[in-house]
């Protein structure tokens, strides 16, 4: 057995394990801190509080709605970016990334200036009697705005990995572009799409800044879990931690379910 090769690998392995474990600890410790502070019995007791149930339900409903909306509206854009070259494409890509770097509260102000009743597009809506701010719809829009880029970028990467040879083959077999998309591209890029959808949904679930700015904070209508946590944080730390743990548990279960679906999906034949 040659001596030096395993030794070099050994150092690298040790480094990888140590660095990996340290980073994992960094990520897990804060959550562990939240978890061990509240006894499980108290968590269950809190789940009986209608205000918390209300916030939790609103969070789950709005984040799922925004994830679905982003998925449906974002896929065409992602497909276009992956498959076509056109002037100004770079600019478009940067524009799509911008909501990710914008501080969420600033995003909220931007949404008000665009879709508020005195806003650029909101004025027209207000003229026909629709006002968006302070509604549950505003919560969904805020989540879509901040979470949308995650889906677009992830789906685009997935589409780009599809070998054009398959599309050419499909075309040779007289498959329409739509048929080819649904029967070839979509199944082949499914892992990226599901991963992107999970990221989008997770980001939407945790959304805070844009929501409180654009949709306000009203229990039952716009107060999602992150807003409820924030409000509780201002008067009752333990309540805030309990709420956070509930949010963590729900997110963990849903993300785990998505990951498992990803692994066990049937192979594309």
């Amino acid at each position, binding site marked *: 057995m040659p001596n030096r090769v395993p030794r070099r690998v050994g150092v690298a392995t*040790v480094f990888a*394990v*140590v660095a*990996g*474990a*340290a980073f*994992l*600890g*960094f990520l897990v*410790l804060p959550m562990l801190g939240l978890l061990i502070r509240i006894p499980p019995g108290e968590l269950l007791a809190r789940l009986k509080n209608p205000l918390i149930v209300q916030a939790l339900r609103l969070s789950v409903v709005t984040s799922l709605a925004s994830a679905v909306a982003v998925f449906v509206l974002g896929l065409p854009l992602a497909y276009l970016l992956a498959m076509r070259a056109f002037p100004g494409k770079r600019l478009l890509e940067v524009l799509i990334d911008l909501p990710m770097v914008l501080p969420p509260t600033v995003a909220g*102000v931007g949404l*008000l*200036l665009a879709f*508020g*009743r*005195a806003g650029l597009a909101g004025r027209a809506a207000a003229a026909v009697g629709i*006002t968006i*701010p*302070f509604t549950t719809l505003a919560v969904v829009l805020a989540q879509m705005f901040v979470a949308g880029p995650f889906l677009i970028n992830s789906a685009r990467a997935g589409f780009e990995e599809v070998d054009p040879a398959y599309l050419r083959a499909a075309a040779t077999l007289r498959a329409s572009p739509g048929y080819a998309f649904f029967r070839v591209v979509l199944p082949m890029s499914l892992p990226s799409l599901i991963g992107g959808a999970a990221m989008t949904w997770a980001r939407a679930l945790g959304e805070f800044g844009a929501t*409180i*700015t654009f*949709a*306000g*904070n*009203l*229990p039952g*209508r*716009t107060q999602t879990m992150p807003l409820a946590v*924030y*409000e509780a*944080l*201002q*008067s009752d*730390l333990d309540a805030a931690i309990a709420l956070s743990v509930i949010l963590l548990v729900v997110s963990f279960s849903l993300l785990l379910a998505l990951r498992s679906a990803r692994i066990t999906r049937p192979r594309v034949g």
Partner: protein
Amino acid sequence: MNGSSGRLVVGLAVILAVAWGPSPAASVRAAPASSITVFAAASLTEAFTVLGKVFEERVPLRVAFNFAGSQQLALQIEQGAQVDVFASADQRWMKYLQQRGLTLGTPREFARNRLVIIIPRSNPGKITQLQDLARPGLKFVIEADAVPAGRYIREALAKLSRAPGYGPDFAQRVLKNVVSEEDNVKAVVAKVQLGEADAGAVYRTDVTQAVADKIASIDIPDPYNVIASYPIAIVKGGNTGGVQFAAMILSRLGQQVLWGYNFLPAVQR
């Protein structure tokens, strides 16, 4: 013990070293004592910013401010924020810290404030008097219950319900129009300033010159208004610079600046 659990031990040791190694508190204290930190209620933003500059001209110390809702500041101090001076918008959160032994000496009232109703200059809700706030469909923005101003407006509305000409269900009808419960007064100003809310409840001092061209105010008559009492105290562990700062706030000069920003004089005890 096999190899992988050995690596696990190494990993855990690293995590522990990262987590508990260098004390973060120690590094904060290592900072030069050439500055003081003042936590002040959001409604004090303008007046204290000016007073901070005055202080820096007279004393060779820099002043760092943290302006937020009093409830948030109190909790940050409770959680170990290194602060020299705390200026609260109500007695409640000062008492909260006092009871936990986190203040030095007796807090002193340095200013008082009163609530007003603000409306956008464009007056989309067509509000000309307090009674209009109960009109169904109006968008009224207040502060959450934990925020001092949020408690005061609820008290004031309850008082108005007992006043002639408002009706016993006045408070209830107005609270039904609440579309958002913000976490500080400045967020309420922002929503009214943008014209998204028809009305908001803030302190008289929040109608600053910077926003006076965008918002108008309606007074709440004294018998029904709630007069907010602002106490100031040195925080446990604070340095002598904090004492100097508090003394300046309570001095004639400090008081005059505060009056200039529409605060009411403190009742000297």
